[in-house]
């Protein structure tokens, strides 16, 4: 966690989008630079790359990497469709972590967390995030930030001579660093939008990503500043949505790619939803699944996991909410094993044995080899 936070601070610039400034058509004629050559090892940029190479090596060895070949190829090729001739320089790594995050290092290694893949509804939304990251890469924002931080660090040393003032000075420096970063975010936003437009995606979708995150944060008790490491440095604002909408108006058309996205990720949705529920932050999960249910081909699955979150939260009325969700999720006889299990578990708690038994039987039919099949079988026998 710490390492990742630091990655955001120090090098890879995170995926948050900042409020846009005034837009003109001219801003949208973005011409990407030539392919970035590996910098001289002795330069500051070379040092930055070497350090990122090392991080990438650690990442490659991580047991937390999603190694499915097809999924990796799919997302890599989506990145390629955005990055154009830079495609060969960009390496995508999918990391299994139930939080919303993506980042890109200056050497071309990009991390996408499974929590993000769960939260985006279609290719266009994922393209918005990847496009934004590619924007940072193409503009070499990390290098600019490194130099900026270094300059300010020198200033910090001077302040440090005044003893405790160093502490205050440091806070002030951080504030200026964030302001500086916001300009980069704005630029990456704009580039991301242009790239996704050129690749044939609907720019309108990009605003929705942030809208969704806001909803989830509101579900959290209190200020909700830590749903994602992203928001530590970049509080999302309604202006961001407006600015993205403004860009979208200038770049109309394009597709969302909902079907194609869900087809590719559907084998993994179960795992990712499970990871989400396991965070034990059920109110946030309820908000998330509520959002993902809307007009989605996987609404049933999401409703089923919302029910799981209710069932595990177990507050007043949660069992009823869960039951209703499980039932709706399976109303067309959808083969959602977990929903039947959930119905059975709740009915069993309420001593409605025949309803419980019926649901458990269906669960075991659908999922005879489930890790908890032994437990459920025993419930069935005692029902």
């Amino acid at each position, binding site marked *: 966690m710490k390492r990742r936070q630091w990655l955001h601070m120090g090098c890879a610039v995170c995926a948050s989008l900042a409020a846009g400034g005034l837009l003109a058509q001219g801003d949208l004629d973005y011409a990407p630079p030539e392919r970035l050559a590996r910098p001289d090892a002795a330069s500051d940029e070379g040092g*930055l790359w070497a350090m990122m190479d090392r991080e990438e090596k650690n990442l490659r*060895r991580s047991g937390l990497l999603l190694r499915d070949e097809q999924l990796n190829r799919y997302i890599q090729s989506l990145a390629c469709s955005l990055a154009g001739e830079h495609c060969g320089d960009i390496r995508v790594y999918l990391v299994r972590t139930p939080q919303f995050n993506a980042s890109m290092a200056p050497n071309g290694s990009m991390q996408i967390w499974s929590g993000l893949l769960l939260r985006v509804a279609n290719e266009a939304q994922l393209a918005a995030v990847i496009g934004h990251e590619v924007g940072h890469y193409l503009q070499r924002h990390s290098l600019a930030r490194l130099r900026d931080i270094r300059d300010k660090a020198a200033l910090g040393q001077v302040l440090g001579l005044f003893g405790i003032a160093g*502490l205050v000075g440091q806070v002030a420096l951080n504030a200026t660093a964030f302001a500086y970063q916001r300009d980069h975010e704005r630029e990456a936003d704009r580039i991301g939008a242009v790239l996704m437009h050129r690749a044939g995606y609907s720019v309108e979708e990009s605003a929705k990503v942030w809208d969704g995150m806001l909803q989830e944060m509101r579900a959290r008790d209190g200020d909700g500043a830590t749903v994602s490491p992203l928001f530590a440095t970049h509080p999302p604002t309604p202006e961001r949505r407006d600015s993205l909408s403004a860009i979208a108006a200038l770049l109309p058309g394009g597709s969302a790619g909902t079907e194609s996205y869900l087809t590719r990720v559907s084998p993994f949705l179960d795992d990712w939803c499970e990871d989400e529920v396991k965070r034990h932050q059920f109110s946030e999960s309820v908000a998330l699944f509520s959002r993902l249910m809307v007009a989605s081909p996987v609404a049933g699955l999401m409703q089923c996991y919302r029910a799981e979150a209710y069932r595990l939260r177990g507050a007043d009325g949660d069992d009823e909410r869960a039951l209703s969700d499980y039932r709706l999720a399976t109303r067309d006889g959808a083969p959602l094993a977990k929903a039947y299990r959930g119905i059975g578990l709740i009915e069993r708690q309420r001593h409605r044995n025949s309803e419980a038994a019926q649901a458990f039987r269906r669960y075991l039919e659908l999922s005879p080899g489930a890790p908890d099949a032994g437990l459920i079988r025993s419930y069935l026998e005692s029902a």
Partner: protein
Amino acid sequence: MSLLIRRYLVVFFLFSALPAVLSPALAQSKNRAPGFSDLAKEASILVMTPDVELYSISAGGVIEPKADWTESAQRHLQASLQTRMTGSQLKVQFLPEEDGDAFAEISALHAAVAQSIALHHLSGGNLKLPTKNDQMDWSLGDAVTPIRQKHGADYALFVWFRDSYASSERKAAMFAMALLGIGISGGIQVGYASLVDLKNGQVLWFNRLLRGTGDLREQAPATETVNALLNDFPAVAAR
């Protein structure tokens, strides 16, 4: 609150480091597996890629990884180990870069075991594990077999470092607090080295550095650090 915590830590680690300082003679045997004394003549040893991370401590005491420092530390350690080990009478080989991925899990396992040896055996005191009978008896077992199969070495040397340094703001804060009579932390170097028998995974020899000095960011102090860590490294049997 956090100041209080650090003071506790200072006290603990000073105490835990004390026995080793006071009784160097004991420390000698403490670092070896029961029954182990010398390395076999003509034996070969594989030096694993050091696992190292460097951190800075900010004025407020926040600890942050520093990848650029780590990067140079990695290079310096590699160079120092090369010099140090080539001086031994063993056949020395270094783990090729491309094998790092394959043995990552074994390295992680070593780190976990090394931490336990340091905590429960070398620190000792009330953290000793009674079932180990005061002996350095830890083994990575057959987890190391793939290393022997791939490289055919008799032994492996694992090295692990975590090192932290105070930022200039931190130093200023430390100075100010010192005037008020309060000691706060500067930075500390922790290093582990394990000599592992690749036949059975036994940790034959182990050493730890735990000190407020040492610097891996520059070559010369890094060499000093490696030499300190491997100071008591077993010799090759006379015949």
